[in-house]
């Protein structure tokens, strides 16, 4: 048996990369006349945990979906893992395989078992054979504490379990960065913690994480930096201790008052 720590993702912020994981400069995006993002600037180092929060419609999801180009920006500079992303560029899949993404609605493949959900990209993109792929998948399912569900179909699992499988599926690709787009928003309250616990574990392992979430307890515990957005702009960035006790921006104060009652 290969030890789990060898198969699982390890971030090597220390040894290799001085350059930031993600560099966003003056990023703008608009739909027709609606401006979704306006001149966003954000730099994220390897090993950093960023929580993006803000009222709905403030552009949080759009921003992290730009990072793996599920949304295409119109203006500005976006560098991910050292590659500058140009709208309409070819070869996006080479960049996306190193950027894991977890969605609000899990987006597991319903016609594949949990195991096959995890191994598909390993086999088709990483070109591992079935045995190697399954070893990686089992290790990551172990990591999200759900190894016994490998042969089930997503519809047979609870929401929390499905989201943990989705996290495992993303981790299998050994991404350098993980993006979380409101990973607990579609879950029943009693399932939120099992997902947050797994995310906390990931953070402790040194994974570079960008999370859009309303879970302020998680943000306080895990984030290195809170990024607060409003109307398509970043209006405040601060470490959690500062952000929660002493928010500068009026909109951030109002937001915290409403969310923390």
């Amino acid at each position, binding site marked *: 048996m290969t030890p789990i720590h060898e198969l699982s993702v390890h971030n090597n912020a220390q040894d290799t990369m001085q350059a930031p994981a993600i560099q966003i400069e003056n990023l703008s995006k608009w739909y027709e006349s609606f401006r979704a993002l306006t001149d966003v600037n954000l730099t994220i180092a390897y090993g950093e945990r960023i929580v993006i929060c803000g009222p709905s419609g403030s552009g949080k999801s759009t921003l992290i979906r730009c990072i793996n180009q599920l949304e295409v920006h119109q203006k500005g500079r976006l560098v991910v893992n050292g590659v500058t992303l140009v709208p309409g560029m070819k070869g996006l899949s080479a960049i996306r395989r190193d*950027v894991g993404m977890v969605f609000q609605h899990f987006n597991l493949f319903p016609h594949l078992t949990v195991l096959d959900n995890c191994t598909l990209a390993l086999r088709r993109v990483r070109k591992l054979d079935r045995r190697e792929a399954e070893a990686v998948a089992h290790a990551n399912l172990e990591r999200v504490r759900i190894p016994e569900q490998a042969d089930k179909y997503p519809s047979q699992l609870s929401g929390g379990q499905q989201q943990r499988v989705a996290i495992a599926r993303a981790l299998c690709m050994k991404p350098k960065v993980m993006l979380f787009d409101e990973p607990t928003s579609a879950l029943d309250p009693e399932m939120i913690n099992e997902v947050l616990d797994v995310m906390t574990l990931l953070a402790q392992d040194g994974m570079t994480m960008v999370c859009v979430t309303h879970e302020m307890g998680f943000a306080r515990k895990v984030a290195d930096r809170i990024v607060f957005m409003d109307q398509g702009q970043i209006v405040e960035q601060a470490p959690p201790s500062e952000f929660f006790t002493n928010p500068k921006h009026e909109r951030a104060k109002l937001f915290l008052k409403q969310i923390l009652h």
Partner: protein
Amino acid sequence: MKFDFAFAMEIFPQVLQGIGNTILVAIASFIGASVLGFIWEILRRSSRFVRPVAQLWIDAIRSTPVLVQLYFLFFVLPHYGIVLPAMLTGVLGISVYFSGYIAEVFKAGIDAIPRGQSEAASSLGLSRPDTIGYIIMPQMLRNIAAPLGAYSVSILKSTPYLAVLAVPEMLGSAFDVASETYRYAEPMVVAGILFLALAMIGVALVTRLERRLGLTPAKDL
């Protein structure tokens, strides 16, 4: 002239002779129509330059009678040096005609798949062909099993059009009997019953397939 049951029984084997070709044409046309329909649908979803052309093509196919298309293939193509056997012409004609409808079935089947599925595939770095083959196609097939099954029966029922090209299928065999004996009621009733039987077998197979797709999701990659 009264319906003669004994005569109907007597000519039964003769009408039955055409059944092999009927089944062959139906199956070949179903495969042809599905493949062509899928190609049209993929073209319709490709670049914005191809899309309107594909749409026009699909509409054109559906807006001309199948008989006109068959006659066109059979009588016009030879003028341009393309001479196909009658049976192949027939299969081609029916395939093309139904591909226009089946493209719409594929469209509905693909539209019903949540956008998040291809987003998840993209985010894992899967290529577009892999996304189509491993994610979209299997889910689409599940969505369209029922309407596709219905079209397979429609295609079966369209095979008598090939009688106009003198392809020896079931209606053709019935006509042969009729022109030899000057009795039409019995051969037509026999042909009708045979088509009914084939269609019912088809429906039963489709239902079974649907049930299997519903209960045990595909296991293999």
